[in-house]
């Protein structure tokens, strides 16, 4: 229990509670069920992509092309949805495949050609966006069919579909990183890449997977994007990557790799979501909103740095028994 209190997630959770309380004291409109639900609904896309970004950051990588990926996949999903023969399953498949392909493209360059992730994804960010604008000529995709757009606001057994999709993403990702060799390899690679290959981890494969998974989740997010807004701008998602990365970092993932949790990232997303919602309710000028968001990021990271310093002094020693009983081999 004590341990739990010391956890990074707990600190961030407290921060979230304090911020929420502060906002609700100023604007009573904040703490209403409908407003809280809308915070969640407005940040599902961010949350889904942040799940994938958590894994990327754990490998000590980064993917700044996800904003462009989102726009790219969303446009294609929209174009397919406009076809007369389209249905929800085709749309889902197109979004997913499109995202995975973009992610694999990044992954091959990063793992195969061993170019640093920041370099590759800055490049592909422009390549993806540029080719999208060339292809669409800058035109929006509009008048999407109702069967597609209604998806965002319908529910199954009272639970909105986007929340169900998010829950599935979280469950799959959690299972992946907690109960599969591949998922643990992601953390091992982030913790000590040299040791990782020494214990038989195919580090290239792991990196490729991580970027492909990031792409897959961006693809899923792109389906929700079109459904939520009903029109898709080829500039959709521009600089959204920064929000995604902020959420992950606020949630406690270290840019040095090796650490980061889904719960932390969810809290990171909520902190950003709550702040934004609160500031809109309080009618804070938009420019100020950027300043506050940036400050929160810096504060969160500073807390980490201070925490780590303290920890260095509290390392444990294993107590080794004076006499060793029994044999060594099993």
């Amino acid at each position: 229990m004590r341990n739990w209190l010391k956890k990074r997630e707990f600190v961030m959770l407290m921060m979230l509670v304090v911020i929420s309380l502060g906002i609700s004291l100023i604007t009573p409109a904040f703490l209403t069920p409908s407003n809280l639900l809308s915070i969640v609904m407005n940040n599902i896309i961010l949350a889904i992509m942040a799940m994938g970004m958590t894994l990327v950051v754990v490998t000590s990588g980064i993917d700044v092309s996800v904003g462009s990926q989102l726009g790219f996949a969303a446009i294609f999903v929209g174009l397919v949805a406009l076809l007369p023969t389209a249905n929800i399953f085709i749309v889902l498949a197109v979004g997913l495949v499109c995202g995975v392909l973009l992610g694999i493209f990044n992954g091959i360059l990063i793992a195969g050609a061993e170019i640093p992730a920041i370099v590759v994804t800055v490049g592909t960010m422009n390549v993806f966006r540029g080719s999208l604008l060339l292809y669409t000529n800058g035109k929006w995709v509009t008048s999407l069919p109702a069967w597609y757009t209604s998806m965002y606001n319908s529910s199954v057994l009272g639970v909105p579909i986007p929340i169900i999709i998010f829950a599935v993403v979280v469950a799959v990702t959690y299972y992946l990183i907690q109960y599969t060799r591949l998922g643990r390899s992601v953390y091992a690679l982030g913790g000590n890449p040299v040791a990782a290959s020494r214990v038989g981890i195919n580090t290239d494969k792991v990196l490729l997977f991580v970027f492909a998974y990031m792409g897959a989740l961006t693809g899923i997010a792109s389906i929700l994007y079109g459904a939520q807004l009903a029109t898709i701008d080829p500039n959709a998602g521009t600089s959204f990557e920064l929000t995604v990365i902020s959420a992950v970092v606020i949630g406690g993932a270290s840019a040095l790799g090796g650490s980061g949790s889904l719960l932390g990232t969810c809290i990171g997303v909520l902190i950003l979501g709550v702040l934004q919602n609160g500031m809109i309710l309080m009618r804070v000028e938009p420019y100020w909103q950027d300043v506050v968001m940036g400050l929160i990021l810096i504060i969160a990271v500073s807390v980490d740095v201070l925490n780590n310093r303290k920890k260095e002094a509290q390392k444990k020693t294993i107590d080794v028994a004076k006499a060793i009983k029994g044999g060594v081999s099993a």
Partner: protein
Amino acid sequence: MASEYIVNLKHISKTFGGIKALNDVSLDIKRGEVHALVGENGAGKSTLIKVLAGVHFPDDGAEIYIDGERTVIKNPMDAIRKGISVIYQDISLFPNLTIAENICIGNDTVWKKHLNWAEINALAEQALAKVGAKIDPAMLLKDLNLASQQIVAIARAISFNSSLIIMDEPTSSLSAGEVETLYKIIETLRNENIAVLFISHKFDEIYRVASRVTVLRDGRYISSHDLAAVERQELIRLMVGRNVEYLTMKAERISEQQILKVNRLCKEGNFYNISFELRKGEIVGITGLVGSGRSEIAKAIFGLNIPDSGEIILEGQPIVIKSAADAVKHGISYIPENRQLEGLLAKNSVCQNMTLAVLDEICKYGCIDTKKETAIAREYTEKLDVRPRDIDKPVGQLSGGNQQKVVLGKWLATNPKILIADEPTSGVDIGAKIEIHKTLRQLANKGIGVVVISSELPEILAVSDRILIMHRGNIVSAMNKEGATQEAILAKALGA
């Protein structure tokens, strides 16, 4: 019938970018024996075991036999499956994973596509119990200190039920008690007919645990012996190619001027009532069993361990040291014991690493004066005999011992008033040890006050002008160099 030898290596060569790190080396390890591998820093010991462990692939012509059968070791996991596990010099574990994961990762019996945590934790607990370690396997590795991480590495190696366990300088980060544990573990392994290949620069240790020894020099095989049949001096001669002995160097001139005085320093649980003085030009040696509080005092003077009471007087002025930055400001330098933690910048050159602590001095108008930089790096690579003598080489490509020398050089270059060196020669070979002793003496002769902490008694006798002996947090005796003997020091250190 199973072969008498568990491993035979023949004609092993390994070239790194045109330089031969190994040249036609052979090594034969008998089933169940403890075999020591010795040689100077950079002789190729770690490279040889990395070939055996599947980390490096040898050049053409190599022959590897396991259990008498010719084989090829494709990668590290292949080596483990063939019964060879390794504790690397750089430990090579995952700080961000749990102890259980660190033990089980890559172990086919539990590290399956879908992980069963009950299975993993059970195997880890079993492995930890075998080395007598009491710790919760769900803890993160990074929450352990370096010595404890080393114990986890040992537990991991044992958990594979290998027939050969390779240990590359396993004791360099262990305390005396932990070293005893390691000896016991090795003994148990031997009783169960598991062979151990043991790399070390400490002769006491080698004679204590090993029965045979193989000597490497400059990447070549020199000879193998039964340890019972070869004297220490002979072994050193084989390693270095000439006779080497510790030199006792007298101080040129110890001034009457006290540079440092420590007055009744106390820290509950660490040390009590510590008082001593250090004069300009003097080397004070502090010895005692590991855990007797030696390193804690050093850290207290350097601001890394704040004492409960007592005072530190620098050149007659009482000073308050609350952090390492304060200490540096007062002209105190400290070379820590666990230099693996020091974080060399592996991809940067020897030169850049050596001058890291003196960046201010080598900068002119904010730009690095490369002439000065290379001069400093040249001076200390020369003085400490860093091999190869190439200051542009990335530090990560140096052998473990040579990396140690770079860290040492980095701190020696700082030109302090007081230098505190904790185990300055850990991990370096005998020739380099003597060079380090000489360097410390030269610094003292320049008027610096030097404190050397070491558990190696011959070293303490060779370098110090005065010797302080600690036992359970107290200074129990102070001896002058004249008249001090190993026996007398040991008796005091043991609390007699």
